């Protein structure tokens, strides 16, 4: 277990309930932890929501937090992963004056190099879109800044866990009133040091 802070992505499966965002968010603010990125979206299971939260912390703190979040009544399951264990992307939009772009940089080259896509091209401005990881989207900001970048926005991270199974199966277990013996209830105790979830 590393005592150093690093980026962790916390994936939270929840019921679709008003107020849950607050219940989750205060778990972080209570410990004075800054949320780097937070995304809520539907999941692969109908009616089940999925929060993707990125924080910079030690694994010890992340594990404790994950357990405290999972303990909340409407939370079904919490996973936490390092960047190596996930596939993740962020989306960024850039608005630049069309003149500048057309005159000073070769738009074509830009698009190809950064995998950007022009979403809107108007006489006065152009909006580009890129999808990628933080460094990639940040690099394009640097490139575009000298050309009068008007507006920049980046979405929260969305992430897929490399080693996950479908949540459908897990949900089936949760729906059982009397969980069968096969339901692994103490799984977090099995792998105390490399726990993946509680």
């Amino acid at each position, binding site marked *: 277990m590393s005592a150093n802070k690093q980026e962790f992505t916390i994936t939270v499966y*929840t*019921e679709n309930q*008003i*107020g849950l965002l*607050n*219940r989750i968010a*205060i778990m972080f603010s*209570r410990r004075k932890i800054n949320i780097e990125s937070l995304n809520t979206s539907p999941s692969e*299971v*109908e*009616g089940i929501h999925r929060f993707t939260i990125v924080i910079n912390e030690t694994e010890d703190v992340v*594990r*404790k937090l994950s*357990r*405290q979040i*999972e*303990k909340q*009544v*409407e*939370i*079904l399951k919490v996973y936490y992963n390092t960047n190596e264990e996930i596939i993740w992307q962020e989306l960024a939009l850039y608005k630049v004056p069309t003149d500048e772009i057309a005159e000073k940089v070769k738009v074509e080259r830009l698009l190809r190099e950064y995998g950007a896509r022009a979403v809107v091209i108007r006489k006065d401005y152009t909006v580009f879109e890129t999808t990628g990881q933080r460094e990639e989207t940040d690099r394009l900001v640097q490139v575009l800044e000298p050309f009068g970048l008007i507006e920049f926005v980046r979405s929260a991270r969305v992430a897929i866990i490399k080693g996950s199974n479908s949540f*459908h199966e897990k*949900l*089936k277990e*949760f*729906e059982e*009133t009397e*969980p069968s*013996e096969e*339901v692994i*209830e*103490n799984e*977090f*105790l099995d792998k*105390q040091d490399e726990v993946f979830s*509680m």
Partner: protein
Amino acid sequence: MSSIEALTEKPAPRKKAITSISGSAAVLEAFLAEGVDTIFGYPGGAIMPIYDALYDYQERLKHILVRHEQGGIHAAQGYARSSGTTGVVFATSGPGATNLVTGLADAMIDSTPLVCITGQVFAHLLGTDAFQETDVINITTPVTKWNYQVTDATEIPSVLAKAFYIAKSGRPGPVLIDITKNAQLQKFDYEGYTPCEHIRSYRPKPIVRKEYIKEAAALINQAKKPFVLFGQGVILGKAEKEFQAFIEKSGIPAAWTILGLSALPTDHPLNVGMLGMHGNYGPNVLTNECDVLIAVGMRFDDRVTGRLDKYAKQATIIHLDIDPAEIDKNVKATVGVWGDCKETLPLLTEYVEQKTHSEWLQKFKDYQAEEDKTVIHDELHPTTDQMTMGEVIDSLNELTGGNAIIVTDVGQHQMVACRYARFNNTRSNITSGGLGTMGFGLPAAIGAKFGAPERTVVAIIGDGGFQMTLQELGTIMQAEVNVKIIILNNRFLGMVRQWQQLFHDKRYSFVDIASPDFVMLAKSYGIAGSSIEDRKDLKSTLKKMLEHNGSYLLEVIVGKENNVFPMVPQGCSVSEIRLK
């Protein structure tokens, strides 16, 4: 239809007679179905429809009108703790609801099952800064196990069923349901009440895994100096007998947290005393000498552990808890046993060998003898003119025989009461442990009496804490509650003063507190009372108090600058405990 829909589809419920009732009546029907008999509450604008419905339920539901919502929720906590059931509270919107917050936080940290119903403004007024509107759900989120706002009456039966289920199952805690006034008034087709038994996103307890029990048992069987720490989990799990069987078979000395107090009779030969900052000498010192530490239903609070990096580092730790978030939270467990101790303890007992650890137990006794000589003897049999808190508790023990419920407030008197009160029965010590809420004692004692009407309830309160919720004398008067109140008056905010003396060069900053004439105050509420300062009056007045028919307030003037010892100073290890 997706597979999940197919999965969640429930068989059609049996047809029940359908009648049209109001949301308010549905709340009260839910209470009856859940076996509620006593409600602590205070009416107001946004909860008036529920109070109107209550008018017709007076024969079946006892409502205790408190004098402040904080008093109401502490009373419900006292009720829940003495009875082992769920406490129920009514409050109105806005200030009524915000006045509950301290009690919710207290119940949350001390795992007390409560269902609190707050009125709320009409749904169409939400978010408009309406009269007595406050965002109760968001205010109470961090201090509730679950909360929910109802805006449609048809939700009430299922939401209340969930509320009671969540409050009392697993690790218990407070639940708050906020009901808008329109939902209280709304009539709907009521199909009866079905208790909740399962929520897919909530697993109150796991299936116990035997391999961890076996691992734990193997460690215990090899131990030369095993030591058990127990907390309220034993009481909440109703596992007192199972716990006793476990320590008796394994022969392991056991020490308690202040919330675990009374789960094991005081005079049990393996009961070695209190843990923590003002706990007993032996349990604190020997925490850092034992080889296997077995924690049962306790959460290693900082007041119990002192400095964590010097806490039981030599020991193998076994932690039994129903809340997986507690395992490894403060102290890393070698073996974590996740489960209800009602189930885990008997399994563990089965696998441990019958043993006695007389030499090891003797070590506790040796430390006890030293503490007796240095601290306890002077506290219980002082030679000073002024009385000590300890001798009051000691005399009380003699008269109650250890059979009373002792409710304490927070401060020096609380530590002294926990240290010296004797208990024969479980659910007999009611105190605010985790939150340390001054003002808890008096209202909690009222609730405790309703929760256990056949028992003697003695509230032991300081002069500071008493003045925080003394308005509840009005509740005692009106509801004719038979509680015995002892105010241990040292004319100081004693615990803060003690810290100022020891750690702030005796700079007594705002701890000198004046008090009213408590006896005259009680008298104005029709409560009998007396005040004593002389040791020779102590036993006779205590006797008079206990024999008095009805509530009684006894003020005992005690030494002004007495300190509670032993003490583990903040930032020190448990083995650095000071005797003076």
